[in-house]
């Protein structure tokens, strides 16, 4: 087996529940060994079903799942080289922490002397050393999560599956765990597949993200590309915040596109690929600049009225309305203590952004 062969190969997998509900619709994905991969999407998009099919708790209606070169068709969960961290942690309530971690080794007949050595190592790895004899009900949610992680990692799986692992933790702990997960993944070198509905979580932990909607994969890309170059209105809207303006393609000038934005006029923006008719122009709020005076060229610019200013501490969101009545939001950093208060509601400001930052979304 060569190292560049994908560790997981999902080939046109479809899952239909009760003959009517299509949870996963013809999904094909290759996940490379050592990758931290995220399945991202709103609830009900089929991401968890896909994960459960990899784990073996659901069978694909059609299509194939290959793990480490081996077709998983008809292979029971207990014989698959993958392990899962459950959303509810699923720590066995009647076993101590050590017994929980040892369980997967014990049932598969690993020698006791080996187990005695591996369990403390695994607990050390998730920073739970010394918790061996605690019962699960004496642990916090975050600690139970670590037990669940240690229990899966001690099996040395080819792939670790994480089903919304951080959704039950409070915001501070979640952020800390995200960083810890990334470090853990780098140190053990195991492929991680995480299912999440939180775009910020996916962006911060994953090497590559698959955005899913209605059972289909809409886009697979690394976090930067996904954020900066979403391929559809859905992805643009789902990942972070974005402003969308309606526009009409007026012509093509070499590698540039001339578009007519409603209420703004004709603007030249760089764009590769084909576009015609009505398109949607998208711009990230943090790329929008506000000026009292007209900015220079090379920028898309127009006058707008300030509708509202919402203060968030490090940033402020400025809600704007242009001449055509279209809404826009700019996110500005509060560099000075009076940055937010200097923008008066009802006043007119120049809104502008680099033409190259404009996204042309055709679907």
């Amino acid at each position, binding site marked *: 087996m060569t190292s560049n062969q994908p560790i997981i190969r999902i080939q046109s997998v479809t899952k239909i529940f009760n003959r009517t509900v299509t949870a996963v619709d013809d999904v094909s994905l290759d996940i490379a060994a050592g990758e931290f991969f995220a399945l991202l999407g709103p609830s009900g998009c089929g991401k968890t079903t896909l994960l459960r099919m990899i*784990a*073996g*708790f659901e069978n694909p209606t059609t299509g194939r799942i290959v793990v480490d070169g081996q077709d998983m068709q008809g292979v*029971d*969960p*207990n*014989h698959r080289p*993958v*392990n*899962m961290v*459950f*959303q*509810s*942690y*699923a*720590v*066995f*309530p*009647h076993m101590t922490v050590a017994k929980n971690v040892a*369980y*997967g080794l014990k*049932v*598969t007949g690993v020698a006791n002397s080996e187990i005695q050595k591996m369990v403390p190592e695994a607990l050390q790895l998730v920073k739970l050393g010394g918790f061996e004899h605690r019962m*699960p*009900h004496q642990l916090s*949610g975050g600690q*139970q999560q670590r037990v*669940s992680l240690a*229990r*899966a990692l001690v*099996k040395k799986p080819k792939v670790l599956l994480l089903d919304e692992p951080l959704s*039950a933790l409070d915001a501070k702990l979640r952020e800390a765990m995200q960083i810890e997960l990334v470090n853990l993944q780098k140190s053990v070198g195991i492929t991680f597949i995480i299912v999440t509905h939180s775009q910020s979580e996916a962006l911060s932990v994953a090497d590559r993200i698959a955005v899913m909607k209605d059972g289909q994969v809409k886009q697979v890309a690394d976090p930067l590309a996904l954020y900066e170059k979403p391929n559809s209105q859905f992805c643009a809207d789902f990942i972070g915040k974005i402003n969308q303006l309606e526009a009409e393609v007026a012509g093509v000038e070499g590698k540039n596109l001339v578009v007519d934005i409603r209420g703004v006029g004709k603007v030249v923006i760089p764009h590769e690929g084909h576009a015609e008719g009505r398109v949607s122009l998208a711009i990230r709020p943090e790329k929008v600049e506000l000026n009292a005076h007209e900015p220079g060229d090379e920028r898309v610019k127009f006058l707008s009225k300030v509708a509202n200013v919402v203060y968030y501490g490090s940033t402020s969101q400025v809600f704007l309305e242009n001449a055509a009545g279209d809404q826009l939001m700019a996110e500005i950093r509060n560099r000075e203590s009076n940055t937010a208060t200097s923008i008066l509601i009802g006043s007119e400001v120049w809104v502008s952004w680099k033409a190259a930052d404009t996204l042309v979304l055709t679907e």
Partner: protein
Amino acid sequence: MKKARPTPLEYTRKRWFQLVMLFNFIFLYFPIVALVAFSFNNSRRNITWNGFTFKYYVKAFHNESLFDAFLNSLIVAGISTVVSTILGAMLGLALYRFKFPAKNAFDGWIHLPIIIPEICMGVAMLAFFSRLNITLGLFTITVSHIAFSLPFVAVVVRARMAGFDHSLEEAARDLGANQWQTFKDVTLPYMMPGVVAGALLALTLSLDDFVITFFTSGPGSTTLPIKIFSMVRFSVTPEVNAASTVLIVITLILSVGTMVIQARGGKDKGLPI
């Protein structure tokens, strides 16, 4: 310091409420207390108190037919408890786990022995056994006891399983356990408080049962409640009181045991999450 007036919902601190409670307790427990007290009464006629004695316990113990009836009760209760616990636990688990056609109808049917009057069940059992020409005796009593205890066990086990996190089983499978190991190591330990509580319930029901046993017992297969009943028909002697007291004590111990086990099982019910 003067105590504050009871707040609107502090009923237990209100005088009229305390009186109602007292009256209820007297109404419920005075007959039992009297029964137990008079089992120590040193009088043949058992109408007036003549002094304390253990002699009727000794007499009851040496009453061969009473002792036989007690043994019969233990045999019937022992066998019916074991069988109904195993079958009932399996039924409870199946009802929790599987969806099958007409499940709701089936669910209703198994509750029938709990709901229908005991006398109907007794008559039905009698008709059933005589139709099949089965001689009435310990066997028929045991079978009927299994029939009416089984739903109780099933209901208790199923209630216990309602709080079970299914992903625990999936986690076990995921970690390499096969179906049997998963059941043995994960499902059964969780289920156990329900099973034990169900078993104790079945044991209590079987030991106490009069009506159904009355219909399904034959000559020479008298159980303790039936024997006590037949003794009372001649006269209420302290001996009867003594035998009844023994039955009460056994039932009480079993019931308290059930409650303790259920309460302890409830403690870890919320875990994990």
